[in-house]
């Protein structure tokens, strides 16, 4: 059992009369990429900023690397890296200066020349922050988050505003952070990103955790099962109802949709072939995390 890096129990946070977070609990284990998903305004940023001691906490128990952010924020900040939403550097600060500065905040921090090379900023060493592209700024922020050689990094909406190619590059960066042994907490509202990167995740909506688990586990639980589709011109296929794992068969002219669970595709394919039917377009349509997310958050708003 890996040690928990972060534990959160019944976190609560209000801004005046507005309750941003009403009940959030989860744990992050060492070495994983942990996702916090939710629509805009769900309380994701408030949650991670509370963990970093940047927000006061009204209720619940929180522990980050064994420290309570209410009393030991400085201890936590020394050991974590952070990429924040809505934060910046002075436009005229050069890339190497930023790395040098953030690296010297903690004894044993990383040498800036090393970080430059690691994050593909070698050519941009003397460039000013204001002249960098969105993707380059993100890479710099990741490099800065790692400048103190942290045990845990928080990445908040890191790929928002990036073009698709830069997003893929950012995903690679996140995987590399984990390969270096650092635990990652990733806040995002992109489902494909969470599905690709996260080992486990929580879905937050309106300040509460509405689901938690691995992306695959959530899809199996909330994704509405597996859909198998194919076309077949003639004949009655009512026998499909008797195939193991099939729960529903729908027909629309020559197009069939079979719903079921788990290994239904293999059983349907075998049954079809057994009867001499080999549709060329037989395929399984997997639910994605997006379907899960929409069904979870729609239920909430109904």
């Amino acid at each position, binding site marked *: 059992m890996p040690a928990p890096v972060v534990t959160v129990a019944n976190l609560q946070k209000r801004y005046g009369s507005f309750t941003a977070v009403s009940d959030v609990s989860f744990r992050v284990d060492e070495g994983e990429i942990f996702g916090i998903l939710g629509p805009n305004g769900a309380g994701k940023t408030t949650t991670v900023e509370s963990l970093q001691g940047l927000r006061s906490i009204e209720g619940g128990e929180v522990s980050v690397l064994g420290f309570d952010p209410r009393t030991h924020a400085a201890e936590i*900040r*020394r050991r974590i890296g*952070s990429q924040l939403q809505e*934060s910046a550097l002075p436009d005229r*600060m050069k890339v190497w*200066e930023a790395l*040098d500065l953030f690296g010297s*905040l903690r004894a044993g921090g990383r040498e800036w020349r090393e970080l430059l090379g690691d994050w593909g900023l070698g050519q941009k060493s003397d460039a000013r922050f204001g002249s960098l592209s969105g993707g380059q700024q993100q890479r710099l922020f990741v490099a*800065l988050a790692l400048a103190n050689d942290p045990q845990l990094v928080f990445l908040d909406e890191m790929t928002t505003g990036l073009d698709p190619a830069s997003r893929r590059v950012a995903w690679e960066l996140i995987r590399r952070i984990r390969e270096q042994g650092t635990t990652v907490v990733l806040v995002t509202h992109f489902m494909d990103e969470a599905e690709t990167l996260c080992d486990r995740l929580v879905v937050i909506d309106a300040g509460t955790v509405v689901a938690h688990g691995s992306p695959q586990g959530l899809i199996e639980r909330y994704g509405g099962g597996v859909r198998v589709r194919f076309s077949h011109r003639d004949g009655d296929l009512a026998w499909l109802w008797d195939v193991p794992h099939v729960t529903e068969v729908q027909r629309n002219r020559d197009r069939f949709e079979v719903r079921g669970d788990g290994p239904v595709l293999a059983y349907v394919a075998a049954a079809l072939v057994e009867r001499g039917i080999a549709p060329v377009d037989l395929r399984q349509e997997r639910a994605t995390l997006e379907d899960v997310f929409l069904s979870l958050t729609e239920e909430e708003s109904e």
Partner: protein
Amino acid sequence: MRLLGKTSWLELKLFLREPLTVLFALALPLLVLFVMGGVFGNEVDADYYRGIGAMDYYVPAYVALVTASVGLISLPVHIAGNRELGVLKRYHASGMPTWIVVGSSVITMFVIALFSATLLVVVAKLVHNIVWPASSIGVAGAFVISGLAFAALGVLLGAVLPNARAAQALGVLLWFVMLILGGAGPPPEVLTGVMDAIGAITPLRHAIRALQDGWLGLDAGLSWLVIALVFTAATAAAIRFFRWE
């Protein structure tokens, strides 16, 4: 301390990369010097300027004015602007201590004020042949305490004002009122009762007095004490109200 040095050096480099602010900090005092020097010269008139030559009166006043412009305008704009952009939040999350952020800004502004004041004095000596300070220690002490008081006011303004534009507007307004009523514009002797009374409560009036007293070997009144009080009160308030975001 190493971190404070590194951060201050970086802040100074960032400042020098803004050509307009550099021009403002260095050229404005010189411009005022040339205009006022051209108008009044350095003749002694017993009724005005504490009975000394106009330029002998004005140069220490302009040195005080430099500390005021750096403290009331440059520093608040810098701090409020960095908060507005999220730079302070970024520093905060990285574990940068507050005293480093504030201290490095204050040190940077001090260096700029010192450079600007030196340039002003050298030019004034060359053009108007002003007197040298009677007490170097008195002048240096008055410069440091004035600089600290205006820096504390500047950090306070930067802490409470929401953004760079608000900081600029209020900073310039305060600076201008102090310039006119504090004694760096018309001599206090020509101000009417109310104006003089308002002028007497501006920190600049006392900064000017303290610098002139050291420079001209005049009677050191309560000005030092007033500036020290301004410094203490503004520092306490700045610590109380400082916000990262």
